[in-house]
């Protein structure tokens, strides 16, 4: 079974928090680019096709991106 796991996965020890932030940026950039190309706001399915993320993963990714943004915002809570 260990071999099945190794065969299926090659992403090893990377922490998910990092990947989620990267996905957040991918989504943000894709949404901007698609918005310009289409002349309207891109939809989740369009962004999913461009980023190869699942629609549900996009919802998680934009949340991670929000966390990145908030680092640069003053603490107000």
């Amino acid at each position, binding site marked *: 079974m260990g071999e099945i796991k190794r065969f299926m996965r090659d992403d090893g020890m990377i922490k998910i928090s990092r990947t989620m932030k990267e996905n957040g940026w991918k*989504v943000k950039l894709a*949404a901007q680019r698609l918005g310009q190309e289409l002349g*309207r*706001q*891109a*939809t*989740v*399915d369009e*962004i999913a096709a461009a980023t190869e993320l699942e*629609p*549900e993963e*996009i*919802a*998680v990714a*934009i*949340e991670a991106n929000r966390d990145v943004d908030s680092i640069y915002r003053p603490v*107000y809570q």
Partner: protein
Amino acid sequence: MEKSDQWRQKMKLIIDSNSQNEAFARTVVAAYITRLDPTLEELADVKTAVSEAVTNSILHGYNNGEGEIEIVCEIKGQDIMVEITDHGVGIPDIEKAMEPLYTTKPEWERSGMGFAFMEAFMDELEVYSEVGKGTRVKLSKHIGDRT
């Protein structure tokens, strides 16, 4: 949860009342409604409204103490309905509570704009509450008005 109507989909989420779960709750609702192919802006609107309602349950309903928050999300065609329920202290005067800038926690630097935001970012807002029993906030929105 009935599923008699092909177009009716429903999910229920139950979380503990704590601030870490506020981000989780809005992410779950956002993930659920991605099946309606919203724009990121529509997602952000719904997330803001859900956040405000869940934050109210945590801060006001349970006064930052223990409790459960229930979030039901229903989809019918392109319409979504999100219901956030707590079993906390309840609201004595709902009309007053919903007035912009009204807050009972000025010492916590609350803005009193939570209900105003929910109203602004969603199509419909209904609030039910009973003192000592709890509060239910019902948020509705149509997804997909592309102009």
